[in-house]
Each structure stands twice: as C-alpha cells, then as structure tokens.
C-alpha cells in the first residue's frame, strides 16, 4: 500500500469515519472532528503506523495533507 492509502486508513481510524477520502489539499477545516485534541491523536497514530517520530518544527509547518504525505515519505526514506 502506498503512503497515501495507509494515511487514509489512519485518518479513518482516528476520526472514526470509514468514508474519509484524503486529498493533497485537505486541511483541518475540511474535517469537522479535526481539532487540536484529535490532531495530537492523529500525529501519535501516524507515528505508530509509520514507525517514525516528528519534530516540533515539522509538525508546526504542516499546511495540508499533501505536505504530511511528503513528510512521512521523507522520514521513512520513501522519497
């Protein structure tokens, strides 16, 4: 499975919504449940799924889901 599909699974788990389809342009504004609380949960879930750890700056700089995918690929050596 590619990074995007795996990330989509994580989104579905965290936001408890089987119908979420992620896009590169997607941001927190697009998902109702995506607030500061679930954001922390999302980061932890992604770190667990991909076995990596994000730095403070990396997390702060994320603008949208596309950047998130790129970041994951960079951290896991897929890029």
């Amino acid at each position: 499975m590619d990074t995007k599909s795996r990330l989509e699974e994580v989104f579905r788990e965290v936001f408890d919504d089987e119908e979420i389809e992620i896009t590169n342009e997607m941001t927190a504004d697009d998902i109702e449940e995506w607030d500061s609380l679930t954001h922390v949960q999302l980061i932890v879930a992604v770190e667990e799924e991909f076995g990596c750890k994000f730095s403070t700056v990396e997390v702060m700089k994320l603008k949208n889901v596309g950047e998130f995918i790129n970041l994951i690929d960079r951290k896991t050596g897929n890029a």
Partner: protein
Amino acid sequence: MNKRLDPNESISKILKMANALVKKPDENAVADRTGEPLKVAVLGTHSIQHFVNVLRLFLDREGIYADIYEGEYDGINMDVLDDTSELYRFKPDVCILMMRYSDVKLEKKEDVDAEMDYLKNLWSHLDKITGVTVLQTNFALPVVRSYNGLEAAYEESFGSLLRLLNMRLTSEHPTNVHIVDMEFLSSYYGKREWFDEGSYFLTKQGFNMKYLGPVAYETARIIKAVHGKTNKCLVLDLDNTIWGGVVGDDGALGIELDPHNPIGEAYRYFQQYVLSLKKRGVILAVNSKNDEDVAKEPFLKNADMILKLDDIACFCANWNDKASNMHYIAKSLNIGIDTLVFFDDNPAEREIIRKFCPSVTVIDVPVEPEKYVRALDEAAPFEWAAITKEDMARSDSYIENAKREAMQASFVDYNEYLKALEMRGKCGIVGAAEIERFAQLTNKSNQFNLRTQRYSEGEISVMLGDADTRCIYVSLSDKFTQYGVISCIILRRGNAENGFGPDDCFIDNWCMSCRVLKRGVENFAFETVIAEARQMGCKRIVGEYIRTKKNSMVEGFYARLGFEPMDNSDRVLYSYNLQKEDKKEKSWIQRVD
C-alpha cells in the same frame, strides 16, 4: 467484549477505545452504569484532555462508572484555591492533581519547604469537599542533569532536591491523600522515552503519550482500592511453584531450592517476595495436591526453605479438587472467596479455578520460575488503599488463631477458655491514631456488618467534627495477638435522613472483624454504645439490619443484644429502651484506657 485491557496496548488503539466509550457508552461500557457514577476531578499543570478520556476507559474496565470533571489547562490554583469554583460545585469523590518537574523551581532546600507548603495548602483546601480522596502525583525525575555525574553527589542539584521533595510527599501526605508514583512509572518504562520535550512544547503533554495507558491504569487501580473491593489472601501451590520438583517423588531434601543452583535460587527469590507480601499484611495459604504430611516436610526439614509453616495461615494439602479447597480456605479464614488470589504453575489448575471460582483472582504464571516474582508483582493483585499497622500484624494473627484453637481444644468450658485468653480491650471515640484503620475496616468488612455503609476517610473525619455523630472503635489484644482496631460503630442522632427523632440514637454502622468472633466483643462495645447514647441525651437506641449476600451471620444480632423488634414493613428495625436498667453480661475482656 474483552474485559481485559492491556495498559501497554498501542496508544492509538487505547485512544480509539476511549473515544468510543465517550461517544457510545451504551455499546462500549463494561461497568454497570445504572447507579450513581463516581465523581472524579482531574486537574493538571499540563494537558490532561487525553488522560481524562483514557482514565475513563480504565476506570470502566475496573468496573467503575465515572463522571469526570476536567479542569482547565494549568487550572489547579484557579479551581482549588477559589471556593466558588466549578470544582467545588462538582463535589468530586476523587480529585487527581497531576504535576511535573517543570512546575517547580528548586534551587535550594528552602524551596522544597515552600513547595511542600504550597501542596499542603492545596490539600487542605480540598478537604472542604466532604469525603474527598486526593491523588497527588509525585515528580518523575527528569532525564537531563545539569550536574551530570555529580547530580546525586550534591544536595542542591535539581535532581537531589526533587528526590527530597518526593520523599517529603511520602512522609508528610495526610491519610486521605494518595501518592501516585510517577517517579516509579517513568523509571519502569524508561525515562529516555518517558519524557518527550517536543510534545510538551507543542501541546503540553506532561509525558510521552504512549504512557497514558500505564498512568491511567495505575490511577484507576488506586481509585478502585479506595472505592472497591480488595484482595486479602495469596493461595499458593507447592510443587514447581514455591520449590522446583515434586516433593512426593524427590523428597523433602531433594526438591530444587539450593541457593547455589540457579533454579533453586529462582524459587527462593519467589519465596522471599511472598514473605515480603506477608509482612505487609497479605495472608498466605497453601492449596496443593499432596499428602499433608509429605507437603509439610520441606517446611520442617529443608533448611533452604524461606517460608516456614508458621507463615501459612491455612495449609490445605489433600487430594480434593482445588476449587473445593479454595472454598475451604475462604471459610476457614473467615474471608470472602472473592478476596483470594491463586498462584499455581499448572495451567489446568488455573483454568479449573477460573471456571469454578470465577471471583478468585488467578495469576497468569509464566513457565520460567525466575519470572514468577515479576508476574505476581506486575499483576498487583494486592492494591490496597492503605497499609495499616493492623495489616502488618494480620497475617501472623491468623497463624496465632491456629494456636489459639489448639488451646481451645484443651478447655472443656468455653468461658474458661475465654478467661485464659487474657483479653484486654479498649473502646472509645475515634481519634487521629485510629481513623485510617477505622476507614479501612468500615470499607472492608462484609460479614459482621449490620448496614454495610461505606465511608471514606474524608467522610469519617467530617463525622468526627459533628456534634450529633459518634464514631466508636474497639481495639483488642489477647495473650497471643495484638489485634488493634477490630470493630467500628457509628452512632447518629435521629434526623430526617435516617427517619428518626432527636431523642433516638440510630446505629448507622456496626461492623467487626471476623477474626474476633465469639469473644464477647459485641457486648463489650455495646456498653460503650449505651453510655455514648445516654451522653447524647437519647431515650432509645435504634438498630437496623440491611441484608446483603454476605451478612446473614448478624441477622439476629440486635435481638441477641436485648433489642425489641419494631413494626416496619420496609426496614428491619430494632429498638433498645435507654430508660430501663441494662442487663449486665459477663465479659472476659478487661477494659483498659
């Protein structure tokens, strides 16, 4: 649904389950949610939102339905110091104060004093909430040391001052404050991972989120120990459990216990740990398939045995099935079968106990004997709210009971026996020295308990200050044992709540430890009850029996004491006229002050 929840499960799974419990409690809760919820307040200097959800989940899995108040971020002072805050309106049963090392400024010893003053001030403010139990975290020592290798060599290093602060929490916390040992948890899981500076700076997580499970589990277990049932007795198998090999085949001297052999050492290590449990008040029993004489031989003849026959309160070695033996052990020790913990290397025996004695806690025993101690310790089946001096003496008193019984056999007349016991008793109003044990007994005793009213230590300390309430304790010793406090009685002047008038003295609670049955303690205590009721200016005493699954032994208690049954269709009530002269019962207990 799988009831067992592993605190070390991945945190995203735990969070998901925690969220599911919030969203759809009816589908996901394990605890009974029909009664009143336990009110728990969580306050912290760092982010507690996720912790609150995870704690709710772990409480649920411990069978506790909780209503949780979540304080504002860094809102401890705001909530605790302001008597008009939301916290005081919520009136929690339990208040958790979560802190971390970055909250305290420690540069010299005086700063530790100041921090202790601050914390004590918080606790005494919280005391205004009737019956509240406070859970205060201690401080996980940080992973960085500005003194490097000299951190522990100087008293004024931050690490040393924090250790001092932790030690002072240990020695100076009042009895309604429980210390949650974050320093232990962080060391157990490893501080390198425990602290996650990034997530602290980013979202103010007090520690790495992957340890939310363990912290919530630890906290939930403490809450359960304060508000629920606790285990009392460790029931051990013998062969391949406390020694290697089979005594029936290998002989008392042939079993594996040699301290110069790694296997023998592992079994001795386990025995040593079991002995340390006994010293803190856990009762020990044996449940073994063996001939009794053969099973006892190692205890008598093998010098490498650490456990002695005198450490075992109930020795049950026979060829009966182990489930029946469990019932026998509970009965002979006069404790509930649901307070037993079973430790046996044989998975088949464990399965039988799980199936036929489902209320017994069964430990998953690993195959390797060197892992026994950790398995038992990590299962923490003896999580108690407090360890009192009565606890420390308890396991011995069960053994002394056996000696007492041997003495009893030599007397033809029971009164002669009671006289020969040379009992001395004390009966009076509860003070600071008795309150911890008074609360413990009030919450633990099931069989000799007339109304089974449970009160926390906080609630009892409120009663002590109430002019219309008397908390009376009885302590006892005899020529074999110092029992300490063994009976608790709470008297209340009649009021609208209990349904009686101001001339009535209502016995709100009367319980007694079953270790001192048939000694005349009840009559001894009743003399004091009468005196106190008269001193309150009452004309009669009213007693009530509320039936539970376990207290049938006291059904006729008040009638035996000379009370008259009262007409009442809803409640089982008895009255005792204080305006008549009392009948004096012969007592063998010498009253001491």
